[in-house]
């Protein structure tokens, strides 16, 4: 295993970069990071969650259908759809990375929306009532009272979802996105006879990163809970 790591470590990390495009684990992290946050999936999830907890019926229904659909089909199917539909929709060829990113954004938005919704539902009903009874509008109450609390409470779940997203990106090598699983496939086809080592090294990359992040999420969770249980 160590010789594989020694020989191909750089390829696992960054793919063929700087000769080719950025690949390897770096690209995995970029894909997961862009897919989950940074102005793409998260705002969509917020809108979905607000629609699902709100009182406008058709919006509620639309958001519910969206969430259940993407929770109900495998990411691979979403990737297939993106691969097939995106070029038709915008009438031009779409790079593999953008296709994968689009699929991950819509897929993750459903899971994120459920996390945000749980955060909103998890607050006592009295918070909204108190905010409204001092004269705040729904939007003001959301902004000043509900969201600051709900978003703080869901930070650990968001970190856990980031772990899930990192793992989920491992399937997009099938449309040729050069992330770390793609690298491992390449290395395996060069090496031929050391498949176990190659794939265990691949597993180790994910394992270390995801375990660290999971433990970070657990630590955050404990801290936030301790804050809430501070002696009255």
């Amino acid at each position, binding site marked *: 295993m160590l010789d594989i790591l020694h020989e191909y470590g750089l390829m696992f990390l960054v793919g063929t970069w700087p000769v080719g495009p950025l690949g390897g684990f770096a690209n995995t992290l970029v894909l997961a990071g862009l897919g989950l946050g940074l102005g793409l999936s998260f705002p969509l999830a917020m809108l979905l969650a607000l629609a699902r907890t709100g009182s406008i019926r058709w919006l509620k229904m639309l958001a519910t259908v969206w969430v259940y659909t993407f929770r109900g089909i495998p990411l691979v199917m979403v990737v297939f759809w993106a691969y097939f539909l995106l070029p038709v929709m915008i009438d031009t060829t779409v790079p593999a990375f953008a296709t994968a990113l689009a699929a991950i954004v819509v897929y993750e938005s459903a899971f994120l929306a459920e996390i945000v919704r749980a955060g909103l539902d998890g607050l006592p009903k009295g918070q909204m009532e108190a905010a409204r009874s001092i004269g705040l509008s729904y939007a003001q109450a959301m902004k000043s009272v509900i969201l600051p609390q709900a978003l703080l409470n869901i930070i650990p779940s968001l970190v856990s979802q980031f772990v899930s997203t990192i793992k989920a990106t491992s399937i997009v090598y099938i449309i040729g996105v050069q992330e770390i699983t793609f690298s491992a496939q390449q290395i395996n086809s060069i090496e031929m006879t050391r498949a176990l080592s190659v794939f265990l090294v691949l597993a180790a990359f994910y394992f270390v990163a995801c375990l660290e992040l999971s433990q970070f999420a657990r630590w955050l969770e404990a801290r936030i809970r301790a804050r809430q249980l501070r002696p*009255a």
Partner: protein
Amino acid sequence: MPDMIDLQHVNKWYGQYHALNDVTNQVKKGEVVVVCGPSGSGKSTMIRTLNRLEPIQGGRIFVNGEDIHAVGRDINVLRAGIGFVFQQFNLFPHLSARENVMLSPLKVAGMTKAEASELAAGLLEKVGLGHRIDSMPAQLSGGQQQRVAIARALAQKSPLILFDEPTSALDPEMVGEVLSVMKQLAAEGMTMVVVTHEMGFAQEVADRIWFMDAGQILEDSLPAEFFSNPQHPRARKFLSDVLEPRGAATLPY
């Protein structure tokens, strides 16, 4: 004196359940009305309709001359003119005591930060929490939290405060500090509607007592009358249960 609250034939259902049954009554400016009754009698529902936390299906409610349940009225403006104190305090846990009190003046009344902060400091002083002004709710006792909640309601500068069982969630030793703040407000001429089981407070402070059961106001009388000579048989039963709780410990066999 003009009416602060005017309830006209108010009806409310939860599905088949008739929660408020043709409630009609008035509260005058400066009056303190204590609402009592067994649990499930509709008293909390009634007080929550007064600032439209609960919708009604029939009748009208005027507060300070404004039709509270009228379609199209800006309910946020109306609510800003009505203080409301909850059983569970409902302080905003992510904001300090001062920030809790400042929120409405800042966001609804449009005060500057400095003005709102000064107002909050004064009100927290008034409820005896000048020394805990920057504490977070989780660092305060239940009684202190409820006093912050009263200061938060006072910050709306409304002539009316509604209290929904303000001492029911408190440990017994903290009930007094909250009631004394409420007595002080009553003495200053604040119009108050108070749902409570604190019969001592009712006797001492209330101008009138409403006794509710089954979604109706069965009795509306002066405290002296109510406690010495309750008219309705259910009021008599209620009073004997509340004032002589030992009776309740007697087993039926």
